């Protein structure tokens, strides 16, 4: 893991009088490897290491008493800065209902997160309604209904096999139940599936969601940037949710997605239960990625 690798690198660096280009390059080589092993995207790592290198070559470090530690500090600070601010709030509508659209690749945890977000918002005094707009996956609507029922939050679904129609009808359903937040659960889809991406664009165009959240599996590898970029280009989403962060994946996808989309990570899903969600902390994420 990075910590023990860095220890031995630092020992070498600390033993030397001052930081040279050579030993900065050596420690950065170790750090580069650690970031790649943590699933951070190849190109993102390249750019990141270049940035750190420029900083490390600065006058400040060369005069530092413990130059090796200084490099790690620079890396950590750069990571925290890159990860963005801690918990960014979601937008709220002037006139209810606030509409939140949940999207992402297959199996990333969207339906479960829809339940979690409903639970989270209700605890904050809102009146959410969950919308089952996945018309493809077997028993998707039933899944959302069961989740909603388990926490006593209303779920709108209909027998329609038209996602747009369901979303459209959900607005009336929300007003009838005096719900002030609509959370639209959508089907998992590939960023390269033209028809499915267009379905989301149509929902966005017509419903004009106040908040679009891209839900990504926390153990995603190098491919994280591809999906994130496409979803950003086509939907301009507002924030990112990383799921399954209760596992031991290092979560490099967080850095990759953040670097490539500049969107904030708004929530971490940390378990299968509907209360297992937490706000995002950039410093904790940086430590996790660094191992």
């Amino acid at each position: 893991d990075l910590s023990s690798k860095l220890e031995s690198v630092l020992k070498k660096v600390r033993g030397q009088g001052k930081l040279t280009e050579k030993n900065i390059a050596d420690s950065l080589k170790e750090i580069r490897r650690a970031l790649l092993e943590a699933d951070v995207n190849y190109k993102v790592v390249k750019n990141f290491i270049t940035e750190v290198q420029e900083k490390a070559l600065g006058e400040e470090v060369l005069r530092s008493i413990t130059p090796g530690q200084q490099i790690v500090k620079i890396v950590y600070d750069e990571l925290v800065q890159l990860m963005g601010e801690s918990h960014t709030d979601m937008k709220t509508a002037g006139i209810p209902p606030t509409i939140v659209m949940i999207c992402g690749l297959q199996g990333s945890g969207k339906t479960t997160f829809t339940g979690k977000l409903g639970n989270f918002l209700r605890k904050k005094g809102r009146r959410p309604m969950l919308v089952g707009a996945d018309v493809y996956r077997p028993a998707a609507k039933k899944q959302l209904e069961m989740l909603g029922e388990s926490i006593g939050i209303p779920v709108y679904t209909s027998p329609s096999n038209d996602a747009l129609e369901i979303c459209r009808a959900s607005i009336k359903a929300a007003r009838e139940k005096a719900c002030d937040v609509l959370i639209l659960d959508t089907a998992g889809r590939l960023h390269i599936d033209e028809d499915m991406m267009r379905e989301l664009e149509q929902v966005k165009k017509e419903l004009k969601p106040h908040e679009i959240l891209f839900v990504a599996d926390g153990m995603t590898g190098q491919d994280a940037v591809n999906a994130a970029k496409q979803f950003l280009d086509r939907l301009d989403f507002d924030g990112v949710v990383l799921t399954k962060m209760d596992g031991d994946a290092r979560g490099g996808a967080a850095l990759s997605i953040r670097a490539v989309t500049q969107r904030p990570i708004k929530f971490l899903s940390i378990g299968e239960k509907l209360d297992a969600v937490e706000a995002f902390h950039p410093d904790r994420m940086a430590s996790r990625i660094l191992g």
Partner: protein
Amino acid sequence: INAKKKIDDELLEEIEEILISGDVGVETTLEIIENVKQRVRKEKYEESHELYRILREEVAGIFPEKQFREDGLSNRPYVILVIGVNGTGKTTTIGKLANRFRQQGKKVLLAAGDTFRAAAIEQLEIWAQRVNVDLVKHQFGADPGAVAFDAIQAGRSRQADVVIIDTAGRLHTKVNLMEELKKVQRVIQKVDPGAPHLNLLVLDGTTGQNALNQARQFIDAVGVDGIVLTKLDGTAKGGAVIGIAHQLKLPVEYIGVGEGIDDLQPFDPQLYAESLFA
């Protein structure tokens, strides 16, 4: 790759980028490149298209032979246990496998062993209806071991050729969930000491290096005979499976290439190696 004529450091760096970007992982990438470099030196290759061929051979050669012979099933029923972390495509893969076996003239029975997740039983039930095979299920929240037990008994009395048991997704780091899986396996072994005849680990093709941890933990808990690598119809290359094949000697049996009933293919190492460099 083919734009360059000579094999040099710049070309090798390009190859490193392709492999790492395909989730092959740093350690495995370095090993592959080192082996390729040795062959290039030994066999005196100069041209990049030759390098490309060596690379494909090197990658394809890492995969062990498939364990599962579809046409040689002697056990009655042949029991397949499908396992893996959350959301990888287990339930969908079972639907596709059932369809494939049914097309081969086999009698298939499915077991709704995920009694934990909302609508998991209903999801598999729809697949069973689509494929037109029997399904053994209990109520939501029932003991998964009991479902597996009943399914194998039913498979015997109904003369099924194959019984495929679905299990709940579980993170390999959750000790209690891995214990539950061990218990399900013990129950299966009580019904038939030879079963499960095949433990299939379903891995998501978009997963990064964590896939190796997953494989290790599932091997440790209940053993794994083969892998199904899903979602290769996206842009991910699933390269973590190369590290798994290399370090853990696990074969890939099938790949998932879509959400439809026919979107399952037997794994072909040559085709896979080609797609990695496509």
